[in-house]
């Protein structure tokens, strides 16, 4: 056990010094020099110890430093790689979730507006912006600060009208482009419904950060050259206006992280049916009216019946037809 005394260290020191000096000579010199220049460091009380201890201590500190740095570098690289992988996967999943949610939000907004339009007797008032949906969160312009980010309704409307954020003139909106190739019949989108998705139901049961905007415009097959009038007299040589009673809706849903989904729908008034289900295509005000006064339905295998109040005793009697 005596080999582990200070005296033992004293005797074995030269071997260690020789081994380390080969590779760390420069570093040792610097460390030693720096230490002597630092007046704040305590001086060694024993001069014989001071002659070798600082040098050994410096050697070992250097090795430890390098090993520690390398280990830290390795661990940091591993940690960063792991973090990056995890963050990327999380972000992908989050974006995917937000994208899906935005698509459903846009779809829901379209459904809401279709129901709203059923109650509007004059669609021209929608095209001019006079009539708006009940689902709005303020004037049809300006900035909204939402969980989905900052949304400028004015700029968004200009973008869909003419592809730029500044005010669109008639020439801008009538310009022939690949996306808007109908000239004077190009859709002039009017803000109709807009607000946070969570406000769509008054019960507050929708937990969503989406912000939805729906624009309405006259459909481009309308050949009256009046984008703010639905189905006016067609421009010659056309004699019929196929766009009468037809509107186009465009819903944007905005979400966190720049997520956006768009749904575009063409709707038309129809004068169709007394049946409740299964008819194809467009919905219109007439459908709602007919739903309200739908024909009686006979229970299979039974006769049609109705209940009437009798004046004799005030009760209800069933009358078979």
């Amino acid at each position: 056990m005596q080999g582990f005394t200070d005296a033992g260290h004293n005797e074995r020191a030269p071997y260690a010094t020789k081994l380390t000096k080969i590779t760390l000579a420069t570093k040792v010199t610097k460390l030693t020099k720096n230490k002597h220049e630092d007046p704040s460091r305590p001086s060694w009380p024993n001069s014989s110890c001071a002659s070798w201890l600082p040098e050994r201590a410096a050697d070992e500190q250097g090795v430890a430093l390098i090993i520690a740095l390398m280990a830290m570098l390795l661990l940091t690289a591993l940690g960063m790689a792991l973090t990056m992988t995890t963050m990327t996967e999380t972000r992908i999943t989050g974006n995917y979730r937000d994208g899906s949610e935005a698509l459903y939000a846009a779809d829901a907004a379209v459904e809401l507006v279709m129901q709203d339009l059923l109650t509007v007797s004059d669609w021209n008032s929608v095209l001019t912006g006079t009539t708006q949906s009940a689902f709005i969160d303020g004037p049809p312009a300006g900035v909204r600060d939402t969980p989905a980010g900052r949304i400028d309704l004015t700029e968004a409307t200009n973008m869909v009208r003419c592809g730029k954020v500044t005010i669109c003139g008639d020439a801008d909106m009538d310009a022939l482009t690949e996306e808007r190739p109908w000239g004077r019949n190009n859709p002039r989108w009017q803000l109709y419904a807009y607000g946070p998705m969570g406000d769509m139901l008054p019960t507050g049961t929708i937990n969503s950060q989406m912000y939805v905007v729906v624009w309405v415009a006259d459909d481009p097959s309308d050949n009256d050259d009046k984008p703010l009038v639905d189905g006016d007299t067609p421009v010659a040589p056309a004699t019929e206006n196929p766009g009468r009673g037809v509107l186009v809706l465009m819903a944007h849903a905005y979400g966190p992280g720049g997520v956006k989904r768009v749904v575009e729908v063409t709707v038309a008034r129809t004068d169709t049916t007394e049946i409740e289900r299964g008819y194809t295509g467009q919905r219109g005000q007439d459908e709602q009216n007919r739903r309200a006064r739908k024909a009686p339905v006979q229970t299979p295998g039974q006769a049609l019946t109705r209940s009437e109040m009798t004046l004799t005793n005030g009760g209800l009697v069933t009358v078979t037809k």
Partner: protein
Amino acid sequence: MTAHSRTVRRRDSSEAGFTMIEMLIAVAIMMTVTGAVFALMNPSQGIFQTQPEVSDMQQRLRVGVDSMAKDLVMAGAGTYAGSAAGALYNFFAPVMPYRVGDVDDDPAKNVFYRADAITILYVPPTPSQTTIRDAMPKTAEQLKVNEQSNCPRTKTGEIDQHDALCGMKEGMRALIFDNQGNWDAITITSVQDEALHLGYDGELSVSYAAGSNITQVATHTYYLKTDVATKTFQLMHYDGYHTDLPVVDNVVSLQFQYFGDPLPPTLLPNKPLSGSGPWTTYGPKPPDLATTFAPWPKGENCAFMVDPVSGAQVSRLPVLGGGVGSVPLTEAMLKDGPWCPNASAPDRFDADLLRIRRVRVKLRVQVAQVALRGPAGVLFTYGGTSTGGARLVPDQEIRFDITPRNMNLGR
């Protein structure tokens, strides 16, 4: 001095080396510690190896679901301008459980059902929706179209007019269809003056009358490609013309199931057959009672027949499942007829395909590395060489339902 020498000798003897027992103990301790470290590291390494593969599988599932869902949700979207406005299922079946196209066409081989294939048609947002100007024979190589008001406008100098080609361009996929259940998907190979030159294999299924509809269309076929010999398991996409492309690798199972309207099609009230559509709840409209769509009797087609008692046009299809809810459409139902537009037409389809309202998709993927797959069984469709629990990545399967919104407009 003597004491000092004794000390030195003692020290010398202690520094002379370790005994064999000390060495063995030291080695044993070292081996135990090293073994413990490796025992800890080994599963970690396995997890490090498997987790990226698990992420990769989920990514592949996501790509597969996204690709099919975006097309399925649009299935059946029809023209929205002009006389034929309405969903495609008013004219023909926009969802077919087999491969349809110029290359390797299933109906040409008399195959009308494959559990692992689906073809979807829909009209994308496009101004190119119009009618053909002249009658088209079955071997027509070019056609001209009418300038409907929804067609794009062009401006040459001061002259502002509708595009004579209605925006049709080279390379565009186009759909020609009529009111009798006939349809053909073609590719526009070139454009010359006012004429569109067409590309398709063989010939058109029928001769189309002037006024038949033509529109830009999207055709998508998804199917499973399985080749055990070359270890190829891919979700494939076919564009209906000449191009097959893989979408996702290592897809070991793909299945489609169909659910439909239990009620047969009916004629809409107050909608004369000579007027503008839609005329039916779904399915192609029948001719008026004095007209014949050969080979059907007067007033009949694949979806409607004339009731011998009342003389009215009623559905040819039965009520399914008590007439409520959405009923599963089995393979037998989807390939037993009646056939539209008729049983001998090259583009025929089972009239029950018009009922489809919901599609269920099952997609299963496996890990790419054989070393991470265990023996074939419940967890692994195709076996691998993995032996360790930390290096097992079972197949992952996803099942989702899509209700195409344009095939559920009245529901």
